[in-house]
């Protein structure tokens, strides 16, 4: 059911960046160092910006066109394959195509991806091009970046699980390249490898899941076929559950969930905040997208047949949410806090998706739609907020670097010395930046609030929805209490670590000399920050548009009356007719708004330097924190030295265990195998050779050189012939 229109051009959305990839790479290689290339093209940044802009515009056009109806387009046949029935001998040929499929889910993700990618591009022109360490290799960054965007956009637009996977892998490659951007640094190189391998483990299962799905659905992986309810009803739901479970493992890997989460924090060690941003804000959404895509299976399959998987998804989410939040408590690196926060928030979405899938599979269509909507909305909010937070953190780090250079330059002449041990990313070196970096601080402030779930701001709406959904499932299915409880606890923990981060960075007095010299410089960085700040704040508008009911009511469109929408949404949240849900809401608000931030303020709050003043919308918080901090005298040193904190510092030992497993078992086995291969398998061949050489020596020794021996052998031979002849005759 292909139609013409803007959708015919939708293929250009991923294609443009993909084509830009070689262009930037080669132009960069050609013109590296020339003034025009550096100044005017920003070492490829402008080219990237152009194609991303074009993609964004196209994406917006597509979104506008297909807000209300599903669109598909076939591009070409990818390959044909044939199957043989050994019973009947019939041979059937399956056609597998490439195409575009646009529905509500696509629209949402497409917007997030295109929009964020564009903003990131703007940001990186400010960030990357001003750092001398990147000179002459920025073109590589932009090339990899556009390829990454191409992967993300392609994944969203793909019309089948297979193409989803293909672009998913493309992103994996780019993430590998971007994390390892400073390939000469062992840590970056290591982190890149780790990221690729960890996600690869998930991908393996994803591929197996796809293979199973392919066989279940008779050679189809395209949404049009597999989401057909009749087709779903026709398959064995037990096998379907296993296939989807396999695919879910892939999502776990990509979205950095327990137990395949180890790569994400390391990816932050990759020294570009931009790449970190790409991972945290966009790529990790791929896993969520995949799970969200499974929704029709759950609604179409036999009642309750797939609920185990839904529970598993939610549980993984719940566990990760709390685990990541716990580890985030002790992180000092600004980006790592954000990384763990990302993990934790994604876990929320998984829990939400798990509830939605459970509902869908058990026949609660309305609730499923609500949970699904909440999850996706959280995805949106989180992407915006987290994008902003990363950019802001990048801004902070960037300026810290610059300030450090200035300071170092004043001190001595080693201004190009990168080897000193000043850590520009550590929050221990910051403090009191609220007045020195007003825009950044604001953005960070709003972003943190959104993540924490401060009422009326961005993430609040969706997070409440997720928690509510999880508890509603828990009421029906007791096992679900685990994820439900975990996400509730997690809400309070989020409040703590996000506030901790903000206060450590922006409140209080500067902890180092460097922090005193920080100030905002480039024009390229604030633009996306401001844009995203408004996007985050504006989430309420989306909430009013019933974004929370996105899925179920997609075709009807509930957003006719904006204020009614906001009102009913508020009522739904704060004055729910179901008392249980209402209580739940307030408990959650209490935890995240009061408990968590209060602890953080008590520990890390403090007023700014004298004469420094933050913007008014932040000053109150700083003041409040200073007060709480003074009053409480809360001392956490005992806890900070506990063994729990120790293991939190070591990220709960996951990395160590995995490392040990890989190094000891896999590599050890591999080395043994290599030895076995050369000693025994090849050794057998060599043994044949040496044996025959020995035999040769012995046989030749019989030729003694004495004619008498020869005659004797002749006589013996005669005898042998007699024996043989007589023996037979």
């Amino acid at each position: 059911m292909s139609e013409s229109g803007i959708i015919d051009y939708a293929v250009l959305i991923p294609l443009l960046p993909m084509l830009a990839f070689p262009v930037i790479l080669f132009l960069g290689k050609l013109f590296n160092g020339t003034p025009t290339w550096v100044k005017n093209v920003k070492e490829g940044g402008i080219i990237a910006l152009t194609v991303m802009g074009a993609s964004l515009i196209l994406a917006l056009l597509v979104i506008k066109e297909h807000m209300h109806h599903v669109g598909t387009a076939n591009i070409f046949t990818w390959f044909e394959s044939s199957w043989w029935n050994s019973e009947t001998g019939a041979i059937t040929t399956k056609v597998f195509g490439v195409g575009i499929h646009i529905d509500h889910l696509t629209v949402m993700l497409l917007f997030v991806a295109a929009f964020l990618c564009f903003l990131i591009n703007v940001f990186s022109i400010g960030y990357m091009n001003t750092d001398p360490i990147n000179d002459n290799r920025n073109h590589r960054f932009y090339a990899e970046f556009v390829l990454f965007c191409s992967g993300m956009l392609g994944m969203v637009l793909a019309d089948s699980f297979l193409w989803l996977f293909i672009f998913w892998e493309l992103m994996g490659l780019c993430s590998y390249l971007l994390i390892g951007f400073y390939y000469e640094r062992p840590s970056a190189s290591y982190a890149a490898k780790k990221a690729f391998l960890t996600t690869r483990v998930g991908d393996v299962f994803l591929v197996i899941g796809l293979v199973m799905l392919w066989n279940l659905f008779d050679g189809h992986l395209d949404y049009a076929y597999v989401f057909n309810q009749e087709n779903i009803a026709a398959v064995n739901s037990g096998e379907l559950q296993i296939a989807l479970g396999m695919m879910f493992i892939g999502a776990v890997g990509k979205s950095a969930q327990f137990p395949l989460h180890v790569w994400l924090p390391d990816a932050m060690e990759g020294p570009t905040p931009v790449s970190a941003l790409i991972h945290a804000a966009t790529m990790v959404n791929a896993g969520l997208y995949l799970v969200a895509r499974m929704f029709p299976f759950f609604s179409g399959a036999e009642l309750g047949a797939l609920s185990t998987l839904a529970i598993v998804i939610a549980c993984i989410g719940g566990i990760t949410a709390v685990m990541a939040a716990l580890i985030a408590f002790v992180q000092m690196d600004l980006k790592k806090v954000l990384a763990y926060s990302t993990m934790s928030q994604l876990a929320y979405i998984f829990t939400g998706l798990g509830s939605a899938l459970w509902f869908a599979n058990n026949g609660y269509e309305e609730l499923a739609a609500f949970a699904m909507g909440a999850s996706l909305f959280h995805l949106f909010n989180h992407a915006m907020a987290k994008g902003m937070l990363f950019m802001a953190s990048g801004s902070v780090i960037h300026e810290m670097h610059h300030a450090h250079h200035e300071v170092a330059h004043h001190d001595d002449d080693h201004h190009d010395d990168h080897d000193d041990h000043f850590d520009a990313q550590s929050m221990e070196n910051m403090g009191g930046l609220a007045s020195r970096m007003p825009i950044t601080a604001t953005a960070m402030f709003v972003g943190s609030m959104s993540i924490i779930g401060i009422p009326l701001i961005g993430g609040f709406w969706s997070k409440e929805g997720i928690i509510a959904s999880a508890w509603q499932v828990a009421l029906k299915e007791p096992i679900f209490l685990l994820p439900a409880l975990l996400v509730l606890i997690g809400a309070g923990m989020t409040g703590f670590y996000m506030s901790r981060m903000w206060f450590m960075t922006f409140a209080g007095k500067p902890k180092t000399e460097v922090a005193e010299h920080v100030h905002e410089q480039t024009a390229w960085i604030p633009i996306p920050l401001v844009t995203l700040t408004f996007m985050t704040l504006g989430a309420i508008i989306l909430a009013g548009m019933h974004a929370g009911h996105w899925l179920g009511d997609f075709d009807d469109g509930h957003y006719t009356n904006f204020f009614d929408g906001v009102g009913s949404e508020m009522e739904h949240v704060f004055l729910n007719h179901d008392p249980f849900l209402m209580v739940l809401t307030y408990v959650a608000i209490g935890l995240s708004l009061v408990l968590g931030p209060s602890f953080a303020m008590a520990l890390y709050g403090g007023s700014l330097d004298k004469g420094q003043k933050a913007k008014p919308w932040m000053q109150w918080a700083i003041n409040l924190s200073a007060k709480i901090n003074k009053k409480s005298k809360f001392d956490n040193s005992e806890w900070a030295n506990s063994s729990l904190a120790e293991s939190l510092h070591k990220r709960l030992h996951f990395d160590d265990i995995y490392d040990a497993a890989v190094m000891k078992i896999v590599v050890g086995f591999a080395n043994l195998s290599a030895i076995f291969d050369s000693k025994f398998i090849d050794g057998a061949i060599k043994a044949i050779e040496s044996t025959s050489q020995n035999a040769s020596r012995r046989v030749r020794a019989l030729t003694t050189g004495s004619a008498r021996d020869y005659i004797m052998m002749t006589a013996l031979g005669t005898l042998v012939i007699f024996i043989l002849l007589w023996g037979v005759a």
Partner: protein
Amino acid sequence: MIDPAWVSGLAAVLFIIGLWGAFSRKNAIVVLMCIELMLNAVNLQFVAAASHWGDVTGWVYAVFAIAIAAAEVAIGLAIFLSMYGQHETISLDEVNLLKN
């Protein structure tokens, strides 16, 4: 007249003595003599068989065999001579440069 079987038997004995001598003696000349012994056994055999069959070809064969034996002796002695020229021995055991 002697039964040809006896002659055959003698031939067989001669042959075996010749063969035995050929590999048990070191001296090349003796070995050559042993070979002659073998050939003589052949001659005897032919003659005996010829008389057994009453066939004249057997004698012809014998004559030819004698000629062959004579040629062999001539060539053999010549070769031994050249060996002696080089190795200064006619012991077969001591002539073993070529081996393996």
